């Protein structure tokens, strides 16, 4: 393992754990109000997002295309949360109401995506790598290489944390 990888690992671990702690502190009150399965799903989503964003911060900040894409996505999600728009996975399906405007927007979005989406393996890779849809092929491969490295570190650290929790309990 190279020195840069170790540094990245340490940096990511620190960020991830701090974000986990931050996540845990206000959440303890609200957990009782929802069903357990929903809570876990929501929590897992939040943890995943925290992991990705802390990885993006630890890896390159705004110097890489994929980290920029991840950070902008998390930022927009946070903004949506702050404005009180609850994401769909929290609300049970029976209570969900679909406003016409939003449905139209969603339709438009999917249509646009299908237009943007490219065929073949490169298109698939574009979908997997954050921000990949706007990249040129050479850049896409470069970003993929960096992304794969960072993901490997992320998985290793998360595995360690999860192992630790599950083993210590």
């Amino acid at each position, binding site marked *: 393992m190279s020195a840069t990888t170790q540094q990245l690992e340490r940096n990511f671990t620190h960020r991830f*754990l701090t974000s986990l702690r931050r996540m*845990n502190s206000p959440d303890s009150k609200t957990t009782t109000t929802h069903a357990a399965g929903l809570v876990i799903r929501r929590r897992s989503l939040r943890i995943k997002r925290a992991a990705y964003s802390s990885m993006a911060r630890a890896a390159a900040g705004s110097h890489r295309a994929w980290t920029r894409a991840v950070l902008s996505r998390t930022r927009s999600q946070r903004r949506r949360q702050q404005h009180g728009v609850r994401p769909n996975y929290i609300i049970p399906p029976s209570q969900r109401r679909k406003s016409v405007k939003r449905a139209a927007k969603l339709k438009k979005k999917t249509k646009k995506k299908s237009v943007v989406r490219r065929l073949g393996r490169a298109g698939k890779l574009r979908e997997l790598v954050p921000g990949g849809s706007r990249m040129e092929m050479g850049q896409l491969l470069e970003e993929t290489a960096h992304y794969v490295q960072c993901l490997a570190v992320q998985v290793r650290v998360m595995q360690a944390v999860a192992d630790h929790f599950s083993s210590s309990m």
Partner: protein
Amino acid sequence: MEPLSGPGARSSPTADETALDSVQFGEDIRHLISVPTENASSFTALLELPPNQAVELLHSPESTRPDSSQQQQYQPPQHFNAGLLTFPTNAALIERAAKFSVFAAEEDLNNNNNNGIGSPETNSAPSNSSAGLHKVVKTEPAEPVAYLNSSSVASDPTVATKDENQRTNNKRKEREKKGKGFSKKSKSAANENAEQLPYVHVRARRGQATDSHSLAERARREKINARMKLLQELVPGCNKISGTALVLDEIINHVQSLQRQVEVLSMKLAAVNPRIDFNLDNMLAAESGSLMDSNFPAVMMPIMWPEVQPNGSRQQYHQQQWNFDVVPQPAGGGWGREDGHNFITPENSLLSYVSSANSASLNSSQLKMEL
């Protein structure tokens, strides 16, 4: 060579220029072919001289003639020299040779007017140095030379031998063949020079297209290939696979599996975490972030949660249990000392878990040592 071209310079400035160029050209040819061509260049120098001087000089270097006649087969520009050099074999034709030399000078003057750059040799010289031997054949001076030959044959039929006639015909055919491609060639060469400024590493090999689009495309392809190789090294089990499509498939699979792993792990953490967060807050509230980072597992170790499902590493669990059974556990106050120790070597605590389960026992043994 220098003393030969010297007197020519005094007599006519344009002739001097061409003589120098021919010297340069001779050197180029010497690089390309192993046959010594000093004599030929000396003859070209000779040809640029005014007629009476040339006649004088032509008497003495009789021995050089066969060399130059050999070179006719290699080089069309040489043909220009050698074709004229065949005349002095008969002593009677020396005067005519002198006449031709004048003729050649006139041709050069015409060329100077036409090209506006200099003699044809100056045009050919850089391309000779940059490109391979095959380009020499296609270079520009072949045209004026061929014209010169044909005109010389027409003007002086007594001099022209059968060999020369055949040769000129061949040359003409060659010229007609290559005349088509030539304008393109020169244009592409200019493009290449312009393109090599931004992409220094891109070089067109023989037979490759040299216009800007294909150069850029080649650069792009090379870049993609390099990235592919890098990715191949990164993704496990990708080294043996050949073929871009298969490698890409493998990369996609790898990325997907990693993302799925992240998802699963976050689920796991979410399932595990809510029972811990009190302790997290309670125990780590006072500590700084970096301390928390390093001591996180050490602090969490003694907490036992029997009701939580033990996912994955049962071995580690048992090992730790065993270790903690053996090692006498200190109460609250003892942790402070351990914390301080861990702060010095932060990799010990969490990052050791990353490598293997054995590191847990190592950690606890360290703890034992400390205690």
